[in-house]
């Protein structure tokens, strides 16, 4: 979340889409209700089903699963057509004014410029900004753009001289061409951009790079283009190649009629929703704020990342990012999934989102050069470019990993780090196991058979593994994959995989912190010890590591150094405490250090107060720069329980600790106008204090604290541009700088925008014998989506009689009209078949899913809750068909985040 759960109470308008917070985040849904109760905020819910969230909505629209970009693109179009934009915000806080390179082509035919049909990838050279500075037409146009800003400043200044002066300062800043950026790093001369080797390109993706899917880093690395240091821009937004004009052109195709054809939402309803959501910017008013709330209903598509990008574009147009009650807010589906991602629980990043080295990153300086961005912005503007600190974060991380072995002389033991030349995303990992490349798997805190798409393939992959270690609190489908339904006793005998099932402690049986959707690190205590022989996960991992280390010590091996030199400074090596690990993650000083500005000193060995103290000379160690400040000399900040909220904005600065730097709303500089004055004085988060010459506020300013508004530093300090990206340049996305609607991999129709390029051209799919895909022509004509219920938590609670009592067995939600047609009554069994497998459960016949007209074709959607498999109370009592719902879902995935397409695939429905 850019904001946080509690902050939702500050909103005036909510769009919930691709998420079902009332059912899957009921405790958090308190805040939308608060906003409705206390601010008369409106709630718009767009979902394939009328959910329990929809029951509280002011407006509900039923959408076809997988058509979200078409809907949001339509709202973007509506916003532009009806001038519901936040003009000053747009011009100065986003890249709307930036000029895009000549040769960049919009995907009118479904393809952006640079597509290579052979490798199914894009050459992104044209997905870049033009270089060249101010192209704003002389005279009136600049005045127009700036005049708006100045006028706004004056209007809110109550005629005080100081404010008047501030506006003038801002205006004058643009007139004086500043030659250098103030961003901690000198700007590279434009004629000689630093060369970057291509290794990561071959890795194909991640957040910054993309390339051939599954391609190996062989041959000469291709040098990817860089962002230009002095971008061309037109503050009048009139240049035909400025981002604003391209955006307008791109979404002019997303007319209300087109939205209706693709999404199934009738035009009048769509217009009602578009008008309601954008009404917060009616008549140029900047006081109100709207929030967009989503979850895995957006991510689990072959274009999931781009759906979220569309939401970001809309929020930037409306000036909603960085503001109380605004933002783009991802609701995380597990209590600590945010923490897992932050701590490098994804294959392509180290903790703190530091990129995993590629084989071509042969030493630390090459790696750092490739991964440390340089500012790219108009010369007259400033960019903090916070990722310029990457070397400090990485060296401190290496010190945390390898301690004394990481010295300047040894390149900080950088060569210990694995360099990966291929992707190990979940689906690809199992594909590799299925193909015999991956020989073993540790499955802790997850049920591998159940969570992936195409369960049959996952089960078959495990059959081919040599060993499997499962740490769980219940006997689960993964540890019993060898007796999944359909495996004969004969076959069972031939499965050679050795399975080690280890009883672990549950969440209440261990302490430690969890990081929630709002980025808070919150500590919990042990409620009771693990029962019987069950052990804590960290003890199991520690003891396995220590034995492996002993083996390397005794027997040597190809490359024992990274194992032998790994920091393991826990007093009880067999049982490291999570508090010790949390302190290690926060980081400590390895030499005395003094802050030259404040004179504050920390001694060697002391906990670091925050990531601003990190050094690249090896005198600090830190396990995750984002978490630095969470456990300081002042104590465990993540254990704080202060309930004060002086501002009334729900900031609660002394409750737990929020990354980064305990700031609750990210990019909060954007909550102020150009002069540093809050857009809405009733919701003042941060502001520029002219007399103190610094940013202050109710929240921790997400900004360079002493950068005056006249410097025109962009609020989006993590982007090298300093501004929000409406256009995602270069390798930001694998599938285009602007989101484009593509059909789900299995779709009932051809894409009405470009039937010849119906699906995402760079989406990943597989060609193995079990990777089958269905079409409507084969009879798979019903759109199927999968989801969770309030009453159950993934695949655990089917073992708990309380929850089984609430929802006793699996079901399939079937539209009443379709059920009538097929003669299906509620409670009768139905068989759902996809190209991969079938699923049998009782039908829940409901009015909550209605038939839709999709591109002139009557289309039905059904829904399947995912909670049941072949181990659990209902399963053991013979109440289910023992089939996981994911037997049905396809092995396809998003090219940016590698998330499988669990939503909106094709099936056929029959009576069982």
């Amino acid at each position: 979340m850019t904001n946080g759960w509690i902050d939702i109470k500050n909103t005036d308008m909510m769009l919930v889409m691709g998420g079902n917070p009332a059912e899957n985040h009921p405790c958090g849904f308190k805040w939308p209700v608060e906003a409705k109760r206390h601010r008369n905020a409106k709630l718009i819910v767009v979902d394939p089903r009328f959910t329990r969230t929809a029951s509280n909505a002011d407006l509900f629209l039923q959408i076809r699963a997988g058509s979200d970009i078409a809907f949001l693109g339509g709202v973007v179009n509506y916003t532009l057509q009806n001038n519901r934009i936040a003009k000053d915000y747009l011009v100065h806080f986003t890249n709307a004014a930036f000029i895009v390179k000549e040769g960049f082509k919009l995907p009118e035919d479904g393809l952006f410029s640079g597509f290579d049909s052979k490798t199914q990838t894009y050459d992104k050279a044209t997905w870049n900004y033009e270089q060249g500075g101010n192209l704003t037409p002389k005279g009136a146009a600049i005045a127009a753009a700036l005049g708006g800003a100045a006028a706004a400043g004056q209007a809110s200044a109550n005629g005080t001289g100081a404010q008047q002066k501030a506006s003038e300062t801002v205006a004058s800043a643009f007139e004086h061409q500043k030659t250098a950026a103030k961003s901690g790093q000198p700007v590279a001369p434009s004629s000689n951009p630093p060369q970057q080797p291509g290794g990561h390109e071959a890795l194909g993706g991640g957040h910054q790079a993309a390339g051939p899917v599954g391609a190996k880093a062989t041959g000469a690395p291709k040098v990817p283009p860089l962002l230009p240091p002095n971008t061309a821009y037109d503050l009048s937004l009139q240049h035909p190649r400025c981002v604003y004009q391209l955006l307008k052109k791109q979404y002019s195709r997303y007319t209300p009629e087109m939205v209706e054809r693709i999404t199934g939402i009738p035009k009048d309803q769509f217009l009602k929703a578009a008008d309601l959501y954008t009404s917060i910017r009616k008549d140029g008013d900047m006081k109100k704020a709207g929030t967009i709330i989503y979850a895995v209903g957006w991510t689990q598509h072959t274009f999931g990342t781009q759906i979220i990008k569309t939401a970001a574009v809309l929020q930037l147009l409306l000036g909603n990012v960085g503001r109380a009650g605004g933002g783009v807010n991802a609701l995380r589906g597990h209590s600590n999934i945010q923490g897992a991602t932050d701590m490098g629980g994804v294959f392509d990043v180290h903790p703190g989102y530091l990129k995993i080295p590629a084989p071509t990153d042969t030493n630390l300086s090459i790696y750092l050069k490739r991964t440390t961005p340089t500012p790219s912005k108009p010369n007259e503007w400033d960019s903090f470019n916070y990722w310029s600190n990457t070397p400090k974060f990485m060296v401190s991380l290496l010190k945390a990993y390898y301690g004394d072995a990481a010295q300047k002389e040894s390149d900080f033991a950088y060569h210990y780090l694995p360099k990966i030349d291929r992707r190990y995303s979940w689906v690809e990992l199992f594909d590799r196991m299925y193909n015999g490349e991956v020989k073993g798997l540790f499955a802790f805190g997850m049920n591998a058979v159940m969570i992936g798409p195409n369960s049959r393939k996952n089960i078959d992959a495990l059959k081919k593994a040599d060993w499997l270690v499962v740490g769980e609190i219940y006997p689960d489908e993964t540890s019993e994959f060898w007796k999944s339904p359909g495996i004969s006793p004969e076959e069972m005998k031939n499965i050679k995989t050795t399975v080690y099932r280890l009883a672990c402690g549950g969440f209440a049986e261990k302490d430690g912190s969890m990081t929630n959707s709002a980025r808070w690190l919150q500590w919990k205590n042990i409620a009771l010890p693990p029962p019987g022989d069950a052990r804590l996960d960290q003890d199991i991992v520690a003891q396995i590591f220590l034995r492996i280390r002993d083996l390397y010590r005794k027997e040597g091996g190809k490359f024992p150094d990274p194992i032998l030199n790994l920091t393991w400074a826990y007093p009880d090596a067999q049982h490291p405490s999570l508090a010790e690990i949390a302190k290690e993650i926060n980081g400590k000083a390895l030499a005395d250090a003094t802050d030259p500005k404040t004179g504050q000193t920390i001694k060697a060995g002391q906990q670091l107060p925050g990531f601003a103290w990190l050094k690249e000379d090896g005198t600090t160690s830190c396990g995750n720069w984002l978490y630095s400040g969470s456990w300081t000399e002042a104590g465990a900040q993540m254990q704080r329980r202060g309930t004060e909220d002086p501002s009334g904005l729900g900031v609660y600065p002394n409750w737990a600790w929020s990354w980064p730097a305990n700031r609750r709303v990210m990019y909060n500089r954007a909550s102020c106008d150009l002069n540093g004055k809050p857009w809405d004085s009733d919701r003042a988060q941060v502001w520029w204090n002219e007399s103190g010459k610094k940013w202050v506020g109710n929240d921790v300013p997400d900004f360079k604290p002493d950068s005056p508004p006249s410097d025109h530093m962009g609020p989006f300090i993590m982007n090298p541009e300093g501004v929000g990206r409406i256009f995602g340049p270069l390798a930001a996305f694998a599938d285009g700088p602007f989101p484009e609607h593509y059909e789900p991999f299995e779709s009932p129709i051809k894409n009405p925008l470009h039937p010849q390029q119906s699906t995402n051209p760079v989406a990943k799919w597989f060609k193995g014998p079990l990777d089958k895909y269905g079409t409507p022509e084969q009879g798979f004509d019903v759109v199927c989506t999968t989801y969770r219920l309030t009453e159950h938590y993934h695949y655990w609670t089917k073992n708990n009689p309380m929850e089984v009592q609430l929802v006793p067995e699996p079901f399939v939600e079937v539209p009443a009209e379709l059920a009538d047609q097929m003669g299906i009554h509620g409670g009768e069994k139905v068989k759902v078949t996809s190209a991969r497998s079938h699923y049998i459960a009782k039908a829940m016949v409901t009015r909550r899913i209605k038939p839709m007209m999709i591109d002139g074709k009557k289309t039905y959607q059904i829904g399947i809750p995912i909670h049941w498999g072949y181990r659990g109370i209902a399963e053991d009592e013979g109440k289910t068909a023992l089939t996981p719902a994911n037997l049905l879902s396809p092995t396809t995935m998003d090219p940016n985040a590698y998330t499988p397409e669990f939503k909106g695939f094709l099936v056929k429905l029959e009576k069982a």
Partner: protein
Amino acid sequence: MFDEKTLQIRAISAHSGSVPGKGVQREVEVCKLMDTTTCIGCKACEVACVEWNDMPFRQTVFDNTYQTMPETEWNFWQLIKFHEVQRQDDGGLAPFQKNQHDGNLMWIFRKDQCMHCSDPGCLRACPADGAIVQYENGIVDFQQENCIGCQLCVSGCPFNIPKFNQTTKKVYKCTLCSDRVGQGLEPACIKSCPTGCLQFGTKQEMKEIAEKRALQLREQSGFKNAGVWDPSSIDGTHVIYVLHDATQPELYGGLPKEPRIPMVYTVWKYLLKPLSLFGVFMGALGIFFHYVSYGPKPTLPEPPRAKETKEDERGNR
């Protein structure tokens, strides 16, 4: 938080004479408010109730609905009823016709439970001294140790709430967590509610909050019939609802608009009760003479009630 810590008795079932200590202490009336317009049907209240009262689990069956079971049970006192209705252009609600699939769908949730009536039909009907008491704060509580299992309370209730347990031969229902309220705590369901659609306080406070919310719904959300359900036909209740359409409470899982205690327990109460007691006495006399004349009946197995046998198994898992 609500902090009334006394439980002063106001009325006692089938008790002759006055209520001991009545009127010696001033006590405010408590009330549970359920705002159906902010309920999300999460069932946290159902779970909190089962857990606080330590009740054995029931075995439920799939019934083409998200609703946990058809009605409250002796060991399941809070039940959210899930209903689909349509919202009409004028802001009122209407039921769906059979086989009607179109219409502006609304999915409404109402927690069903004992209403803690000011004029409790159960208490009026109960022939057992002290089996049902009504406290001054409005809570109507069953005292199972005095319950004779006659189930007259079941027929006296306008809401089908008291439920008989075949094993213990007693009747049970929501206590409004009198044990918690007596200690200054809110009921368990209130504590568990994530959206705050359940609130607890004095009747006066809750009425004010409810009326304010109903006004907001009329003015801001276009529910022109939004209002508060607190039926005067039984002198009001200590569980009140905010409804999107207070003119049609029946749409919320059969919530009666004007609940009535069966005539037999009101008009004829003073006539019938002695008569029925006489009947019971004569019956007992008959049984006594039958026993004396014919001897004991051979033991037969209890009539099977599959559901509840399973429940105990489930409870012991």
